[in-house]
């Protein structure tokens, strides 16, 4: 228990705070599994949050708002995809420039809509809500975005692990030339993955302005989240479930950081706020070292060791960052 928050409340808070991040990180996972790094996340999240709020406000429809967020994300996906897959430009350069551009574009275009009341997604009760014990009631009364995030974890896990399309996508990320040899169209698959991923990132952004931190303003409160999303993909070893767990861990750090203020009154509260970011990124070092060790275990003949290895093993798709040029 952190501060005065009861355990169920803490769980509920963490779940709610992690939902948009999960959606964003899963979107990036999708793109990266196909071999394309979309580095523009940080700006796109804001841009989508702005677009979602503006549309939701104008139409008074949350659904249209979320769609607008997704489309705004997809629009940036088109740029990232076209530049890196078809023009073969550096994915990092394109993503970084786009990230700064989208952020400022969001601030610029969103200015007239800042700090006004708009539609908000409320937490909804489950049908069997009243029959649940009260702690479960607390945990389970969540906005739809939380269920969406959890559903997406399952869907994307299934997609990668069991579906034909997911296998094709992964194969392109590993070795586009071989995929081409087997009759796939790597460029098309990468483009679809980037667009789909960017759509999810947009939905994640919309979840900020329509649910978790309702409203638009500068700052919006989602600044820096895109970078965390990118780090989470590595942290999660490109595995949707681990990525989601990472997002939850980050949300926990953020929620509990407020309570830590009471526990350590000598330390300025600002320090707790910055802490999760470096913590997240320094776990990457840990990942690096544990990966080299667990890679061996991952292939061990003992089932248990294989499982343990899989938990910590992380390896980028082999073709990550390079786009395929047909001869």
């Amino acid at each position, binding site marked *: 228990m952190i*501060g*005065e*928050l*009861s355990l169920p*409340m803490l769980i*509920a*808070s963490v779940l709610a*705070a992690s939902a948009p991040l999960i959606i964003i990180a899963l979107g990036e996972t999708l793109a990266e599994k196909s071999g394309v790094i979309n580095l523009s996340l940080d700006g796109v999240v804001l841009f989508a949050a702005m677009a979602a709020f503006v549309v939701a406000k104008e139409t008074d429809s949350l659904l249209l708002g979320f769609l607008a967020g997704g489309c705004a994300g997809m629009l940036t996906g088109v740029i990232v995809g076209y530049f890196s897959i078809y023009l073969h430009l550096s994915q990092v350069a394109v993503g970084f420039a786009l990230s700064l551009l989208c952020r400022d574009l969001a601030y610029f275009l969103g200015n007239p809509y*800042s*700090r*006004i*009341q708009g539609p*908000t997604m*409320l*937490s909804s009760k489950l049908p069997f809500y009243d029959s649940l014990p009260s702690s479960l009631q607390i945990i389970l*009364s969540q906005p739809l975005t939380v269920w969406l995030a959890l559903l997406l974890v399952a869907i994307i896990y299934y997609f990668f692990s069991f579906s034909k399309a997911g296998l094709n996508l992964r194969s392109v990320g590993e070795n586009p030339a071989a995929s081409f040899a087997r009759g796939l169209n790597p460029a098309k698959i990468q483009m679809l993955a980037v667009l789909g991923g960017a759509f999810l990132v947009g939905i994640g952004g919309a979840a900020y302005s329509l649910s*978790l*931190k*309702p*409203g638009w*303003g*500068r*700052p*919006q*409160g*989602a*600044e*820096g989240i895109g970078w965390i999303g990118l780090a989470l993909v590595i942290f999660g070893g490109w595995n949707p479930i681990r990525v989601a767990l990472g997002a939850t861990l980050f949300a926990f750090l*953020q*929620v509990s*950081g*407020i*309570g830590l*203020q*009471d526990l350590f*009154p000598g330390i*300025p*509260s*600002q320090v*707790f*706020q*910055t802490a999760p*970011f470096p913590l997240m990124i320094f776990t990457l070092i840990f990942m690096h070292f544990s990966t080299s060790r667990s890679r061996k275990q991952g292939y061990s003949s003992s089932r248990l060791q294989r499982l343990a290895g899989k938990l910590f093993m992380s390896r980028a798709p082999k073709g990550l960052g390079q786009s395929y040029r047909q001869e």
Partner: protein
Amino acid sequence: QSHASADTFIFGLLMVGPANDHGWSQAHFEAGKEIERNIPGSKMIYIDKVNPADRPGVTIPFLVDDLVSKGAKLIIGNSDDMTDGIREAAILHPDIKFIHISGDDALNPDSPENLSNLMGKMEYGQMMAGFAAAMTTKTGKIGYLGPLINDETKRLAASCFLGARYAWTEVLKKDPADLSFKISWIGFWFNIPGVTSDPTQVAKNFFDSGYDVVISGIDTTEALIVADQKKKEGADVAAIPYDYEGACEIAPDACLGVPYFNWYPGYSYFINNIKNNDWKKEWLWLGPNWKDMNNTKKSSISFKNGNALPGDVQTKLAVFAKGLGNESISLFTGPLNFQDKSIFLKEGETATEKQIWNLPQLLEGMDGSSK
């Protein structure tokens, strides 16, 4: 057509937050508009979001240079954080007058002659806010969303607490031990991601931990928005925003009311002085006009009731305000202890303005960090 005619008076306003923040900056902005409407020939030029997070690399002297080049004769800086910049600019532009809101540089004999300070006695507003909160809380737990820790914010939080305790013990006749008043400081006047605590999250934590009224001491309206969200989800909670008369509009049904500043009296005082060549360096701390508290021309501080404040509480609040006005209720009167149990005021002793202005720490009974 000639915008520089003799009786045009241009004044520049530097606002720390957005002009439409439904809070501190908007209160200043509206006062400036009011000046434009009421003082013939006056014209406001302004720039908002003057803070290093929103406008990285932009300094106060730079903005002042620009406003002066556009003809401004008076510069108003509305943030505590502009202290150094305003002073630097005042030295660079000795023939331009400066008002720094909320500081006390003018009390310092070395400070430039063209720099005055203006502040409102929000202590009274906060007392009323605390009163309203204590009268409505069901759980006896009041949360205070604090900005950063300094003398001003400590005295405001303390005033709020005193108002709440008065309502709890003197009006409701309950045990003071059952009232919990907790402050969570976010680190700045508004959210800066990755730097301050996220006020949305802090307000959520308050409500999730059983606090049913959250009073906002920050310039933006997150507490009210979260309260509204929770209320729509069925929780019986409410919030009190801060600074701006219209703050409740963003979520009227969850709003108990708002203690607000009205800067028009202060602004017009200084502008008239400048026009009459009566300027002098001064430190002005303006309070409510108790007889006509909601009159924008006269009263610098007031409290506006919100939809969520029950009718009977409204009546009792009016009585309370009256008591504050005729000094039959004096809350900064002993016995009062500091948070560390050391004595602030002895039995019967009343604090001086200076003691209140420079309140060193929070009071006994308040929960939260003093430094």
